[in-house]
């Protein structure tokens, strides 16, 4: 009979089947490893592109602070010193940056310095006013093109026209490097400056503070409303159509694309209610509405986890339902609700599209000081720098991403810490 298997056939079939089993397992393993590999590749790309941004290139200049050029005297007041002609000092210093420079060379070499050099020369003087009439060796910030070349991000062995620095400037560059006058040091600008048109001066302080204000707004709005909503739905809501509508609504709102929330902010908050544009107040409100479902779902889970016996005990002692909930159930659920809120905030921190919609994409060169001031936010700053054609911004982008990832990591670590420290198993 044909459907009768011989012994060998059965062994063969079993071999085939176990080979298929092993293959299947290998596919799973490969898929998992691919996911991991992609994650590490992503992180590696960002770190390898971004770490150089924590360094900036500086060039040593011999600056002679003589009083004729500055037009001040040793007994000038501070105000007069502030207004002294530092740009002339800078001009002289740059003209003598290298020996034997022609007029054309000076023009070229000037482009190798940041526009911030006047300020640095001035600050150095204001910090040590007794250096009048002396010559000082100061390291001043180099232009982004020099910086990129020194860090190896820009190539030099390509056609002159395609390079930012021409052949003559490369000669200067080599002279600076060989005499040890061009070096890198810690880039403080990246941490204390706001955005700038010049890559070597641009920093994340402005967008970081903007993000902080935005997240504070999100927290102040979403935390109370989220807890309130989850208490209502868990404890007080009657079982009727409207409650069901609310529940379905929350579930669906969680999956609405974030850009739609941006349109809500633009159409309602800005155009109808007249909120101030580009401010953390509007951005925070939109993000709060967006993260609300996440927070409500987490809060409800942690309220549910508190055993009913605790509430019932309070009720038996004569507490009203409100007292039983607010004095006993909510405090016990608080760590869980906080964890959920932090996770919601982490989600809000990385969100970009809604903030673009409400105009937090404007170029803001100063650090915001309030909720109703136009400001940038970290992810939007990243977007602005990605879109920038200037090469120097690419490492800034990667470095800003590193910062945002570090903050996300810290927030999640805090959530995990809160959960493990305060969560009780009943």
């Amino acid at each position, binding site marked *: 009979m044909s459907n009768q298997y011989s012994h060998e056939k059965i062994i063969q079939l079993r071999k085939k*089947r176990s080979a298929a*089993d092993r293959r*299947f*397992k290998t596919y*799973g*393993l490969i*898929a*998992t490893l*691919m*996911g*991991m590999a*992609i*994650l590490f590749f*992503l992180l590696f*790309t*960002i770190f390898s592109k971004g770490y150089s941004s924590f360094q900036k290139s500086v060039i040593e200049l011999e600056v002679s602070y003589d009083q004729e050029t500055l037009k001040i005297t040793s007994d000038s007041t501070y105000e007069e010193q502030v207004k002294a002609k530092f740009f002339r000092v800078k001009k002289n210093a740059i003209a003598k940056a290298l020996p034997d420079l022609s007029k054309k060379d000076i023009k070229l070499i000037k482009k190798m310095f940041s526009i911030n050099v006047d300020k640095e020369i001035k600050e150095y003087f204001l910090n040590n006013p007794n250096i009048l009439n002396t010559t000082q060796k100061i390291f001043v910030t180099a232009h982004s093109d020099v910086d990129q070349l020194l860090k190896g991000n820009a190539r030099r062995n390509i056609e002159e026209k395609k390079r930012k620095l021409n052949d003559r400037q490369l000669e200067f560059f080599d002279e600076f490097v060989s005499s040890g006058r061009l070096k890198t040091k810690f880039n403080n600008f990246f941490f204390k400056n706001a955005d700038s048109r010049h890559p070597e001066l641009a920093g994340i302080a402005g967008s970081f503070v903007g993000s902080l204000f935005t997240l504070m707004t999100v927290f102040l709005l979403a935390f109370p*409303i*989220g807890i309130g*909503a989850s208490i*209502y*739905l868990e404890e*007080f*809501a009657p079982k009727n159509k409207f409650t069901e509508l*609310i529940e379905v*609504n929350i579930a*669906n*709102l969680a*999956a*609405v*694309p974030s*850009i*739609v929330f941006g*349109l*809500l902010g*633009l*159409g*309602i908050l800005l155009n*109808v*209610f*007249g909120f101030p544009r580009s401010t953390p107040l509007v951005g925070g409100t939109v993000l709060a509405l967006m993260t*609300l479902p996440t927070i*409500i779902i987490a809060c409800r889970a942690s309220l549910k986890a508190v055993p009913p016996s605790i509430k019932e005990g309070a009720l038996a002692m004569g507490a*009203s*339902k*409100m007292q039983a909930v607010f004095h006993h159930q909510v405090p016990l659920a608080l760590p869980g609700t906080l964890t959920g809120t932090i996770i919601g905030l982490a989600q809000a921190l*990385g969100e*970009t*599209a809604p903030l*673009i*919609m409400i105009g937090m994409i404007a170029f803001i060169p100063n650090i915001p000081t309030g909720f*109703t001031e136009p400001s940038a936010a970290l*992810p939007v700053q*990243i*977007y602005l720098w*990605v*879109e920038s054609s200037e090469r120097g911004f690419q490492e800034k982008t*990667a470095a800003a*991403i590193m910062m945002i*990832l570090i903050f*996300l990591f810290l927030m999640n670590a805090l959530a995990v810490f809160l959960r493990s420290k305060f969560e009780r198993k009943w």
Partner: protein
Amino acid sequence: MFYWSLIIIVLGIYSAYIFGKSRIKSNAKQLDIKTVSLPTYYAQYMMVWCLLPALIVYFGWIIFENQIIQNLVLANFDFELNPTLNPGLLIAEIKNVASNISFAEGKAIEILNAAEHYSSLKFTSTVAFYLSVLIFMILGVMIASRKLQPTFRAQKSIENYIKYFLFFCSTVAVLTTVGIVFSLLFESLRFFSEVSIFEFLFGTKWYPYIPIREGQSGSQGSFGAIPIFAGTFLIMIVAMSVATPIGLFTAIYLSEYASPKIRSIVKPLLEILAGVPTIVYGFFAFVTVAPFVKTFGQSLGIDASPTSALAAGLVMGIMIIPFISSLSDDVINSVPQSLREGSLGVGANKAETIKKVILPAALPGIVGAFLLGVSRAIGETMIVVVAAGTAPNLTANPFENVTTVTVQIVIALIGDQEFDDPRTLSAFALGLVLFVITLILNIFALRIVKKYRERYE
């Protein structure tokens, strides 16, 4: 106005609290009876009655102040006589002059007068605001203080107020949805009054520029969204064909094969991948994947665009992997153990059990996860804004440059917004389409998942 009014309101409710507490105590002492509720509840009652009127005034002002002042200022201009005047631009100019942003010199005398009028109205409004906040707070406290009798059940009414507040909190989600629908519909209707809805849904040419002058040749605006929908679809297909196999196999491996130790390492790593902001994926696509796709295309002899659908789709697929894998993982784990054991018991090996028993049983849940992934891919913005193109292109070639719904929304709203220009309004029409499609996908997916859960519970 923002900070000062906040301070005034906080001080107001604090004094209402103190006042309420001392008043009820002295009232009770006079009558020599005990209060029904604890004195704090009476004080809280006063707080509520101080806060509510203040909030009403506050929000009333926020909503109506600008509108009323603008209308009063613009009332002096005759728009019928002067049809070239644009009220929006005019009010912006007046505001700028009033706040010294733009120089007053060289402006028309009407504008200067209007700016002065505007400033004086603004000042009057601010003074009136503070006065009315104070008056309303005092009025509220005065009315409520008549109830400060020891026999008044303050606790009960406070608890009712709290309940109303909690109810309000839970309706915020509903109000948000209503707000979304309202804003999208309202602006979309304005858009469709200028562009026919059939042209929008079935037209194949997207050229969102309306001629500035009448009869300007060669630049007739055209709003056919088919190329945009096609681009979105193409990128979604690429993304899902990356995310579905990898995500699903990861879920199978983690739930069926991996030891608890591997699970405890891989799951948090996948969570990290899920928590990476999408703009970071956009950067990754832009600096790493897109150049790679370009050289890959060249090695195949295909001229790939630097912003190809493939690059954006691949990275979007990576973004969706953890989403698919964690949802499918939950679904596979909730397949009853008895099914597994039954299959293994009749001699099937693990792969056969998974393929013939577990996956069919989990299929509805996996389809739900897939649909949620699709809805994510369609609504994803930052990856495509950075890594996909901006020009509409009706093509099925993933090496070419396509654009998506979300990219067009961002482009339409990123520059100067003028809400009487169909270009700006088109963003809301596209947003409406996006919202409706993702909503349908979500409702459908959630229903499937729910049905599936019920089956095994």
